């Protein structure tokens, strides 16, 4: 990857109100006889319009933290508030609603529905939000235009390149105007040139006022973020502007 400009020269936007407040969160897994402490007490605040990278070796609790932030999982103990709502106590359906309205996911393997065209993939969160079809088409089309795929809206995933697929996934993450965009190794399945394009897209999203959380093990990716959190053994090792 091409080295990004030194952090001092890049604009850092003023942060907004608190979106995520995590306090003393732990997560235990029972693996047969063994109890695994995936998180041992993590405390973290994330504000609107931050660009955050979460790093850490495998087994550090990175994935668990990401699942927790994405409201796919709830903590064993500790406090997790999302926009002031207590997520830790929510039911599966309430979590689904939070994911639908507040979180946009971007996955390493894109995770598009293979049989649906780009437009339909981007519409998916809006379908579950109950948005009427006319408005849905329009918003999905605009989201695809905003990631530069306005001319590919009726292509199926297998008719698109890897970079284009990830753009569709980003459009899907954006379409419901979520509070945070949560990207899990977004460049992991892309060649370096395409990876740079996606990171440039993220930069644009950040400039436009979105909140980005990128989980990665690549320093080169993390370097684009304005704030980097390093996890080790279920605890936050460092938090700050490292570069």
């Amino acid at each position, binding site marked *: 990857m091409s080295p990004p400009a030194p952090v001092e020269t890049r604009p850092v936007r003023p942060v907004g109100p608190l979106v995520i407040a995590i306090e003393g969160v732990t997560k235990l897994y029972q693996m047969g006889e063994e109890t695994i402490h995936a998180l041992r007490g993590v405390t973290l605040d994330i504000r609107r319009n931050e660009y955050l990278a979460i790093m850490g070796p495998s087994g550090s609790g990175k994935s668990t933290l990401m*699942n927790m932030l*994405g409201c*796919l*999982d709830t903590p064993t103990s500790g406090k997790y508030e999302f926009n002031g709502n207590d997520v830790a106590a929510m039911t*599966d*359906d309430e979590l*689904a*609603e939070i*994911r*639908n*309205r507040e979180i946009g*996911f971007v*996955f390493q393997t894109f*995770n*598009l*529905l293979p*049989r*649906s065209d780009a437009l339909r993939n981007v519409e*998916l*969160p809006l*379908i*579950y*939000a109950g948005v009427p079809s006319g408005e849905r088409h329009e918003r999905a089309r605009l989201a695809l235009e905003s990631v530069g795929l306005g001319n590919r809206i009726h292509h199926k995933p297998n008719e698109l390149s890897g970079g284009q697929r990830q753009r569709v996934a980003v459009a*899907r993450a954006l379409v*419901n105007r979520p509070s945070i965009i949560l990207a899990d190794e977004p460049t992991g399945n892309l060649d370096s040139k395409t990876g740079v394009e996606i990171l440039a897209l993220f930069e644009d999203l950040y400039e436009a006022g979105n909140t980005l959380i990128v989980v990665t093990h690549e320093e080169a990716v993390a370097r684009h973020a304005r704030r980097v959190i390093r996890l080790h053994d279920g605890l936050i090792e460092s938090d700050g502007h490292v570069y």
Partner: protein
Amino acid sequence: MNEILKMAFGSLGVNKLRSFLTMSGITIGVFSVIGVMTAVSALRGSIETGLSFLGSNMFQFSRFPAFGVNGNSEHKYLARRRVSLDQAQRYIEFMRGSADVICLKAFANGNPLVQASYGNHKTTKGVTFGGTNQYFLKANQFEIGTGRNFSPEDVDLVRPFALIGQEIVDKLFPSENPLGKLLKANDRTYTVIGVFASKGTMFGGSEDNIIMIPISRFLMDFGAEQYSVNIATESPSQTQYNATMEKGITAMRVVRGLRPEQDNDFEIYSNDTLIAAFAKVADVVSSGAFVISAIALLAAGVGIMNIMLVSVTERTKEIGVRKAVGARKIVILTQFLVESVVLSVTGGLVGILLGTVAGDGLAAVLSAEIVFPWGWAAAGVVVCTAIGVVFGMYPAWKAASLDPIEALRYE
């Protein structure tokens, strides 16, 4: 809901062959019950709207019941004495004044099959061949086309005369006038004295492929010891019907030499009893088809469940994605349930269509009226929906309960 339906059809379209095979189980189950029910109700409709087995105001005595669910092999019937020509003639004597139109008849039992010939012309084997008297026409709604009917003397004098149907004329006398010609039937010779006017078909059998000779001659040539005479009596009017039948039964008991405590050793049928007997047969056939269909549908339901479980496993990742972007449990559950219902109802609709076509086809062959079994079709749709829901519930529930993290990680 609209969106869910769209998704269901979309994903069923992906595995067209698999969906088709799964549906065909349901189709077969529904087809068999709808086919039989359509045919039965078409026949029943025809019978109840005026078709007569016997002429109007007629009742008939014979040794065996008309329709036997268990065949006529029951000991009770086999043990009965034959109704002899002598008994029949004494019956006619008794009834003189009460009923004058009394048709006697007996038909060749097919051992051996009857084949008629004239010169080099031959009929197929299995011509309807029997003996009767001058009232055959009236009792069976036949008419003479050309020539003459039997006279009482033809019967009394055991004359070797024959009345033949149009089909026999076509086969044996394609270019000749049959009247007065000698035809051979199983090595016996008969003189053609009349030709029946053509009647067409009834219940799939031609009524024109027939040769009738005097009953006395028939019993002489084919063996009186083998045959029992059927006696069909016409009441002079509808109002006297019951009284005439009562008198007839008494007369039969007298000629059969029954003591008062003995049961009738003959069957009595009228149009009503024949219709009832047919209805009984129809009920047995219907319930048979019903049981077979129930089993077929059960098997098909298990098939749907199986294919839906496979589908859930294959689409674990898709389910994970849907959940990640905010699909609630009930939405996933509904999506898969709709898929299984669409499968089974589509299969059911095809079965209803095919079953109706087959049932009505059969009805048409049997010259019965064409019907559309609305009630059975509606029941079919309801049952198929229920099958879709019942057998789709577990796979759909399994899909809805998947952990989104596990599902997303699934490869």
